[in-house]
């Protein structure tokens, strides 16, 4: 799993019930614009995310509806497991003596 994907998942897992749109996710993950949408499409393709158009009156809001994304229940579990695996240090690192250890 790439670092940007991990960052996107961390943002979404921070509040799994909350819906966010692409730019909002990108800002929270501190990713450059354009990076987020391919990641969201891939995650949606594997069923970790679901998306929907915002239900607003464009005339009243003064802007068109946004596309909102949120984790599915299965996606949240899978994302947590994937991040745990990604953050787990490799066997070589675990066996390597750390600074300050004898």
């Amino acid at each position, binding site marked *: 799993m790439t670092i940007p994907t991990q960052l996107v998942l961390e943002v979404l897992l921070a509040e799994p019930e909350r819906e966010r*749109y*692409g*730019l909002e996710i990108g800002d929270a993950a501190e990713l*450059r*614009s*354009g*990076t987020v*949408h*391919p*990641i969201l*499409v*891939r995650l*949606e*393709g*594997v069923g970790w995310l679901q998306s929907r158009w*915002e239900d607003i009156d*464009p*005339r009243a*809001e*003064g*802007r*068109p*509806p*946004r*596309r909102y994304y949120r984790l599915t229940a299965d996606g949240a579990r899978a994302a947590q497991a994937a991040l745990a695996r990604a953050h787990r240090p490799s066997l070589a690192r675990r066996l390597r003596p750390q600074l300050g250890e004898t």
Partner: protein
Amino acid sequence: MTGVRGPIPGARFGVALAVRTLPRRADRQRFSAEYMAELYGQPPGAQIRQVTGFLSKAFALRAALGAAPSPLEGSAMPTTSVPHRFRCRVLRHHHYRVYSTGDGNRYRACAFCGHESPGIRGPIVPFGMG
């Protein structure tokens, strides 16, 4: 629509360019609308930065969409590619066998890649030189 700053013409053009690479019309419409909606309310400089990002990742988005075909498309379009083994594809060594067509004619074709032998009545070599 009033009150919220809309995309500037340059940003609109950039969005149109960015989604042009997407293969399906439905994807182009979806991301055009999605990108445009995200540009609303942003200052012109931010819109240009945003659109530059969309353009730079247009092919990544195309690849991501290609990697995640819709279930309908996946079931409706079975793969038609024939796996060719190395010996057939590169060395041209075919494993010919005799097959019959529905109307009773016979022909020789490779059992692995389906390559048809030009000579139908010739001797059949099990691992012959194609």
